[in-house]
């Protein structure tokens, strides 16, 4: 008897068999359903809290960035501060404000708020230094406590009306100095077809092997659909010289695939979610820098570790083994726009090739080993020379 025929007979013999449980299971089922309902309500409440926390986090983050955006003007005011000490201890805050308003004293445009804060800080400096003045009457020369005009120390430096230009030049130099360290947040999506479906007729080989094909094997079909990968990451860059920099970071990638098995009057849908954590290593060549817009080329490799694998058949979670380590290489052309000295927006259209890792798990990387992608992100620039 052929294997297929034997299997069919066995299946038919047992298909209507029923066995009563020895105990009533319904009580336990009902108790679990009640528990799950309570847990679901708790989860909804938790999600609301998480959304609220995320909004607060974004608000704080934005405030932090704005504050840092204004920060470079403050050191210039700080340079000015000590200079008032000796000669202007009797000046009112208004007078100080008026002085601070003098464009010769402040290189970069400052807001009224900055000037006021400078005045307040000035007053604090005056208070702090007032006591030592009284305690040091025996100093041989009061001028000795004052910085000399050619002293390089910024704390003790007193800008003269003729000096603002020099201060301005120093600030300019600081802002346009090559940045040594960058950090970035980005999101990445592939630009291939939205639905890459593969229709695979599974019964052709089996039909050749077995003459007595079972009914379910006729019109048996498997379909695969792989959604575009979505990645989020944190990257860091180190400038090697004016033209080259190396970058690394951490990238999270999520892959979602749907496998549909079609049989007469039956359809089994299996959803597969794979979560990867990757570490890229890239070399970046800066081609052009013009009015805050930069153009660069990036090339490098990436290793992705499958940190979690989920499978769900018809709404039921199943155990799934993790994928093997996934290696890839890629290149991209990047355009960067510096919104503020510390923050840039960038877009990197590129191409990436994923090597076959030899695992049995089908995913987007195997279906489309070479694909185009677009990375959009924010880049934070830190000047390590500060």
């Amino acid at each position, binding site marked *: *008897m052929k*294997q297929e025929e*034997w*299997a069919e*007979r*066995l*299946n038919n*013999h*047992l298909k*209507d*068999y*029923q*066995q*009563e*449980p*020895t*105990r009533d*299971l*319904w009580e*336990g*089922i*009902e108790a*679990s*359903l009640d528990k*799950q309902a309570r847990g679901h309500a708790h989860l909804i409440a938790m999600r609301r809290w998480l959304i609220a926390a995320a909004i607060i986090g974004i608000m704080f983050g934005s405030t932090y960035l704005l504050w840092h955006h204004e920060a470079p003007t403050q050191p210039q005011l700080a340079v000015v501060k000590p200079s008032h000490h000796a000669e202007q201890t009797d000046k009112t805050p208004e007078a100080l404000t008026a002085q601070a308003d003098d464009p010769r004293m402040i290189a970069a445009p400052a807001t009224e708020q900055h000037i006021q804060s400078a005045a307040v800080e000035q007053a604090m400096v005056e208070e702090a230094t007032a006591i030592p003045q009284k305690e040091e009457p025996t100093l041989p020369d009061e001028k000795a406590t004052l910085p000399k005009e050619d002293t390089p120390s910024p704390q003790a430096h007193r800008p003269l009306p003729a000096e603002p230009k020099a201060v301005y030049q120093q600030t300019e130099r600081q802002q346009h100095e090559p940045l040594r360290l960058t950090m970035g947040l980005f999101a990445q999506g592939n630009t291939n077809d939205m639905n890459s479906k593969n229709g695979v007729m*599974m019964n052709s080989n*089996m039909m050749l092997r077995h003459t007595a094909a*079972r009914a*379910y094997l006729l019109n*048996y079909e498997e379909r695969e659909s792989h959604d575009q990968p979505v990645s989020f990451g944190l990257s860091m860059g180190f400038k090697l010289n004016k033209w080259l920099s190396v970058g690394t970071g951490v990238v999270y990638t999520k892959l979602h695939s749907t496998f549909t098995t079609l*049989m007469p*009057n*039956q*359809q*089994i849908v299996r959803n597969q979610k794979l979560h990867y954590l990757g570490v890229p290593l890239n070399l970046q060549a800066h081609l052009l820098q013009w009015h805050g817009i930069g153009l660069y080329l990036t090339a490098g490799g990436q290793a992705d570790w499958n940190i979690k694998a989920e499978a769900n*058949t*018809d*709404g*039921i979670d*199943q*155990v799934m*083994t993790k994928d093997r380590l996934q290696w890839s290489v890629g290149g991209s052309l990047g355009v960067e726009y510096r919104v503020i000295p510390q923050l840039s927006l960038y877009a990197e259209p590129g191409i990436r090739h994923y090597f076959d890792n030899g695992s*049995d798990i089908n995913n987007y990387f195997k279906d489309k080993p070479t694909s185009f992608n677009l990375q959009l992100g924010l880049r934070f620039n830190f000047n390590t020379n500060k």
Partner: protein
Amino acid sequence: MENEQQLLSAIKQGDRTAMRQLYERYKGYAMSIGLRYIPELSDVEDVVQDSFVTILTAIGKFDYRGEGSLKGWICRIVANKAFDFVKQHERITFVDNIPDAPNDEPEMEHIPPDVLTAMIAKLPPGYRMILNLYVFEHCSHREIANKLGIKESSSSSQLSRARQLLTKMMTDYIKRHET
């Protein structure tokens, strides 16, 4: 409620009586599936209970495709749960000393279904899984190979061995009950 569609509609509205009715209607089938995979009755009952919790939780996602589709879906969930249970609690093993297959195939229809189910449950875990997946879940050898982490050719050859083992058990049973 006479048909699956009415039952399904009531369950989706949160009707606990309809849920109980679903359980009562299909618990026997669920138990018979579990008993083919898991040798211990108490373990089977735990798996069936867990399966119905999952079924009633996920029933909102079920796409009704005509009378019998709900039963098919329930049976698949129970089979998947039982498969996972065996995978987690037993080592998937195959044995080398397979008895020679009798020349004549026994008339399996002469063996009561509960006895035949118990025979399947007595097979070594690897054979039991392959036989269940191939005969009752209609999985291809490729799918079985993926699920068990074995080669596709191994799935085919081990199925033949599972059949040999089961045939020997059936032949012995028939011999015992003929005399």
